[in-house]
């Protein structure tokens, strides 16, 4: 429990809470960015520098900006967000709490197992640029390339389904 861990964890938790508690969508986005900052700091404090950096570049720097872009445009007029319309599904709240509880139980259980079951720790060099690169481009080169195909299919799909060309 180093001070860095405490600060970063507090940031992450505060951000996560902010996401679900704020009424203004843009504030939620900002809170999520805060959460990512905390996570990145956690990674870095665990010597997984590359993971931390990538967390920032990809999630905070690219994906959340896109979120901000879209949400910012949708709420550009700052219309009050509809909140009091009630729950669309009956028993929505109890059910979601039950689901979340089950999930927490499961995850907590697996954490306990990981703690007491004597799982092997992460290998040395985990999360550094070199190890990451080796895994990505040597052992996992096939999944890596397949991901490229997945993305390209998505791009083709966007152009085919909503592009200017009329089918």
């Amino acid at each position, binding site marked *: 429990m180093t001070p860095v861990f405490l600060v970063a964890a507090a940031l992450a938790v505060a951000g996560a809470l902010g996401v679900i508690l704020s009424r203004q969508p843009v504030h939620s986005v900002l809170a999520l960015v805060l959460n990512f900052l905390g996570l990145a700091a956690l990674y870095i404090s665990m010597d997984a520098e590359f993971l931390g950096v990538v967390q920032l570049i990809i999630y905070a720097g690219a994906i959340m900006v896109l979120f901000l872009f879209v949400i910012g445009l949708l709420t550009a007029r700052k219309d009050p967000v509809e909140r009091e319309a009630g729950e669309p599904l009956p028993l929505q709240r109890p059910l979601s709490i039950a689901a979340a509880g089950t999930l927490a139980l499961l995850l907590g*259980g697996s954490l306990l197992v990981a703690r007491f079951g004597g799982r092997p720790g992460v290998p040395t060099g985990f999360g550094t640029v070199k190890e990451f690169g080796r895994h990505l481009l040597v052992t*996992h080169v096939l999944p890596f390339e*397949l991901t490229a*195909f997945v993305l390209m299919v998505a791009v083709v799909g966007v152009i*085919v*389904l909503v592009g200017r060309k009329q089918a």
Partner: protein
Amino acid sequence: MPIDLSSVNPNLLIILPPGVLAVFALVVLVLDLYSQEKRWLAGLSLVGVLLSLVALWFASRPGAVPPGDYFGRMVTADHFTFYMVAVLLVAAGLVILFSMDWVPRRLPKVQVEYYELVLFATLGMMFMAASRDVTLIYLGLELSSQASYILAGLLRNDPRSNEAALKYFLNGALASAVLLFGLSILYGLTGTTYLPEMLVALGQAPLPLLVTAMVFVIAGFGFKVAAAPFHLWAPDAYEGAPTPVSGFFSMAPKAAAWAAVLRVFLEGLSIPQVMDKWSVLYAVLSASSMLIGNLTALWQTNVKRMMAYSSVSHAGYILVGVAAAARAPEVGAGAVLFYLLSYILTNAGIWAALVALENQGEGTEMADFRGLAQRNPALAWSLLLLFVSLIGIPPTVGFFGKFFLFRAGVQAGYVWLAVLMAINSAISVGYYYAVVRNMFFEKTEKPRLELGSSLQAVVALSVLAVLVVGLGSSPVIQYAEAALGLLGR
């Protein structure tokens, strides 16, 4: 043909079939930009599939690629891989062939994209069948699913196609998430994504978590193969999607998903503590799929929708084999593999007939089949034979497929399930007969139904295969059962 392959790096040889397909897909994608005439690109796609089959033939010859894992343990060379990849390529080839006349008529602006997406989807499915690493299995699933979502929505101006794409996408994305969640728990329990290692490490895993993960994985795959009660997206997706695309859905993606199910459950989750559990779960899914699929199909008036429910019931039949595979792996999995081939070969002809109707500007309602025997007797008799195969009456391939599943079920002690399967086959006569009655006993004024050479080829191939593979099924089933014999052992 004396070509010495022993000097070729097996890593290259095993990746050659998907590699050829990927290269052709990309080349077609680029040529689309520069070519005014689009029809030959469909031919080029077909050539890609055929060349990929040729590459597969080279790779699968004894001694070319020693059994084992390649590319960082990502791709497996065994009979299972060769068999399933061949089946998938055949399915893709048949789909491209029966789409050739339809696509220029209905999708004039996105002709080439159609073939590209079919090729990309097939590429993903090949990796689903060829890998023993859940990373690659999942990525292959995603690639094929994404391409499928887009294919379902290609008719941009048809609201039903939009609905099909949206429903398929939302359900599929949910299924992927559920599946991934299950797989990630498995990874957390074992620290590996490589199925044989997972199998070894699972022994120490706590059972409750393991069962939770297993349920998630079953539910995820259940969506993908449209087994009841996870089938609700299927009828709408099949009905709304462009007809050849629905045909594609009923043939290829499901076969690949079944391959992944067999891999994950027989190689990764086959420790005794959980085998019984998933076996029973699959047996229950099997019973519900057969009953729901067949009983609902009886009430359908649209043939595409009817075929969707029919495919749900066939998923139920296949699940008999999967459930049996827990207790009798070779027989059960062999029966599943054989059934996949028989189902694809039979379905190709039926969907070709539906495409032919749409080619003449007609619909796919029951009523559209009226008097087909007058309009094109050869097609009507072919369809009759194909329906007979789907029902499972000898001497067609469908009979042998069902017979092997039945045998596997009995051997594994699922006699009740096997009997239920026989009863359901009898029920299915009802809705197939409805089409047959319309074809032979109703009169119509409509002109002759022309098929075009590529559709004729598909129907002829389908009919031929139904007879030949059925009568000559013993080498195929031997190969299929041997395929599992080599799995992971």
